């Protein structure tokens, strides 16, 4: 780790797990995902129904490029039916005592736990993320979110929004493809706990777990129309957020789309929360716990193939430990296992879509053209499917595209700083402000930094840790409104003074 005399020091040897002790394939069974229908309609008013249109989209397994299922491209008419079903259900649902709504949410949480293996495998197949993550991160968090908000349902009077805060009505929710079921949980759980009904549109590359969730709603006996799911691409999403009978719009996704939605609904009475892009700085000081910082950097940018809006995509490292840290980071990256998402030992799965792979490839190429130095460990990539090696860029400056634009892939840009003030300045020098990480053993510095970083989440000596009790959301172009925690109730409540 330390730079030492060349005569005795060993070169940095990646501890390749592919030497003596090679792990045999340990595949999770694709059959555990349960039956995937050849084609799906929408889930409206408690029933699966056909689309009013004839256009169908296909969802593929990004690890194999095989088509998994066809699903409906939601039309304006479909959206209208779904919103009408949600409106119809609203009166009954919102007038239930909170303790009764909680029972449904608790039931959903328990069913998610019971069916977690099925859902984890299905998510891996549809999204490309490794089963280790769906099993150990996504699904436990999905259940935790429902459990957490179930607990709030009968305590809204005491949530700090004044007496008797009221639901808004019908919530239109549009979610991304990077954590399909988890983003659904982040949206649906607080909406239902507060007494709203929802129409949710999953992403067009990952609709399957949302459609499976519809089955869970039925299994839990949720009243018809409380949760409606309409599939389709951006056109469906636009029709949904534009619908005049929607009271609340919640969107997680890219900043351009978020901006378009904000424009679209400006001047209406719809309440809006946006969780958009990020370009988080992961800041490592010279007194950091180095081995754990390396793990945190890896987890920050390579978790979920880097398809994380709060990913630590800019590593800001103090110049005095740059070489030492980068040696250790490269050694660690050499042990990352890229491949079959269903293999239990896979660390990095498939890129979600051909389009996303093209964007990552384009930005990485721009990094090289602009003069940054590219490095990636040797690793074999499967033939079919969409793959990208975990990649590191050094010599990156603030002016490079890879330091400014969200790549949303396993690509880390390394920048350096000399003093804490410079670290803050560089970290904040981005239009985004979703998250940041600080690595130091000095507690006072953590607090000093956290007060100055303009980011919705600041992690100290950890990264990409999520918990339903903790509010999550952005500054600046990363959006507004918070999800999670007590704060996550507010976007779904009318907290203005009661009209008398």
């Amino acid at each position, binding site marked *: 780790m330390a730079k030492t005399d060349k005569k005795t020091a060993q070169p940095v040897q990646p*501890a390749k797990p592919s030497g003596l002790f090679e792990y045999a*394939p340990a595949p999770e069974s694709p059959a555990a995902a349960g039956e995937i229908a050849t084609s799906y309609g929408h889930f409206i008013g408690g029933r699966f129904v056909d689309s009013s249109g004839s256009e169908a989209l296909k969802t593929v397994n990004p690890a194999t490029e095989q088509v998994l299922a066809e699903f409906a491209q939601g039309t304006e008419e479909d959206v209208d039916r779904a919103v009408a079903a949600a409106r119809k259900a609203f009166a009954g649902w919102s007038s239930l005592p909170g303790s009764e709504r909680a029972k449904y949410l608790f039931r959903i949480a328990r069913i998610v736990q019971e069916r977690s293996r099925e859902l984890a495998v299905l998510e891996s197949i549809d999204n490309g993320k490794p089963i280790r993550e769906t099993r150990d991160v996504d699904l436990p968090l999905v259940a935790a979110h429902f459990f957490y908000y179930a607990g709030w349902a009968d305590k809204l009077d005491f949530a700090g929004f004044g007496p008797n805060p009221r639901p808004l009505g019908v919530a239109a929710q549009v979610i991304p493809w990077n954590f399909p079921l988890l983003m659904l949980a982040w949206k649906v759980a607080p909406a239902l706990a507060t007494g709203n009904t929802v129409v949710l549109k999953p992403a067009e590359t990952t609709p399957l777990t949302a459609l499976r969730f519809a089955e869970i709603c039925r299994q839990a006996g949720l009243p018809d129309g409380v949760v409606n799911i309409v599939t389709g691409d951006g056109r469906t999403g636009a029709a949904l957020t534009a619908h005049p009978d929607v009271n609340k719009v919640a969107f997680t996704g890219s900043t351009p789309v978020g901006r378009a939605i904000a424009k679209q609904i400006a001047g209406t009475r719809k309440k809006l929360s946006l969780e958009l892009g990020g370009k988080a700085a992961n800041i490592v000081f010279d007194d950091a*716990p180095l081995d754990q910082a390396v793990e945190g950097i890896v987890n920050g940018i390579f978790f979920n193939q880097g398809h994380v809006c709060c990913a630590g995509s800019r590593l800001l490292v103090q110049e005095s430990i740059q070489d030492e840290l980068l040696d250790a980071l490269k050694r660690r990256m050499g042990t990352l296992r890229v491949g079959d998402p269903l293999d239990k030992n896979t660390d990095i799965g498939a890129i979600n879509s051909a389009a996303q792979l093209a964007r990552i490839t384009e930005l990485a190429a721009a990094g090289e053209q602009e003069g940054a130095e590219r490095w990636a460990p040797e690793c074999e990539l499967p033939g079919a499917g969409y793959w990208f090696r975990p990649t590191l860029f050094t010599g990156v400056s603030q002016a490079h595209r890879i330091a400014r634009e969200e790549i949303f892939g396993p690509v880390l840009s390394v920048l350096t700083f000399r003093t804490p003030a410079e670290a803050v300045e560089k970290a904040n020098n981005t239009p985004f402000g979703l998250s940041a990480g600080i690595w130091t053993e000095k507690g006072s510095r953590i607090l000093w930094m956290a007060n100055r970083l303009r980011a919705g989440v600041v992690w100290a000596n950890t990264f990409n840790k999520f918990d339903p009790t903790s509010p999550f959301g952005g500054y600046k172009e990363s959006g507004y409104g918070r999800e999670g925690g007590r704060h996550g109730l507010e976007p779904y409540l009318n907290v203005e003074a009661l009209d008398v």
Partner: protein
Amino acid sequence: MSTLAANAPGAPGGGLADVAASEATLRRFLHGLPGVDQVGLEARAATLGTRSIKTTAKAFAIDLAISMIDLTTLEGADTVGKVRSLCAKGLNPDPTDRTAPQVAAICVYPDMVETAKTALRGSDIQVASVATAFPSGRAGMPVKLADTAEAVAAGADEIDMVIDRGAFLSGRYLEVFEEIRAVKEACRRPDGSSAHLKVIFETGELQTYDNVRRASWLAMIAGADFIKTSTGKVAVNATPPVTLLMLEAVRDFRAATGTQVGVKPAGGIRTTKDAMKYLVMVNETLGDDWLSPHWFRFGASSLLNDLLMQRQKLRTGRYSGPDYVTVD
């Protein structure tokens, strides 16, 4: 750790000898090592613990684990008969399958070294002896050195010493350093060769991960051939995070000095599943260079039978039971 570069390589202690020039320099060095974040270390160990080791990988790992065992009996009730029977077990772990590898060493108290040596004559199995007033280490230096010398004279190939945790915890690092140096000296045989020295930290008593990292560097600079977690005699023995931290220490020590040091977790490792987790940590932290009994050991007694039962299961396809392995 850039201070390391200033030290001339090749000197005793792997080029770090002047680190121990005084209490102050030693303290400054040990306290200058990067800190350990407890949450992060434990999370990493837990993640590595989720690796799924199946079929051929499992067969390889089981045999490797058997060959890394320091099969141990350290009881007041130890007798010549008990030690002989343990040696027989180490030589032929599975009487129904002679392809099962032998263990690495038999680990006993000093007065049983001769018995073990005799029983293992002609084999490659090493005899390891605990020493230095094991397990507490609460005795004067002359007693500790005599304890060590007696074990070496009786033929011990390896000495497992304990550090003075009291001295370490009260910050008298140089005293611990000099003690290890002296015991290392006592490991010398008349013919100039030396018994291998394993230094036991009793990590359950050192408590913090920062202490474990400091103890690791202290022992390696003082000349330890192996660093070992525990005696097996206290409430908390080897754990995956502590062992991972020690693996990182030997990795960094080799990078800094060129000297390779072994690691031995001991106590509480009882199942094949546990052993697999440790081997995965070695594999992904250190790689091939440490995947041999020369550089990694398990201090264990009941682990062997569980490995043998899993081995039988892999070979025959049927689950084995405790009556199909020998109790020694």
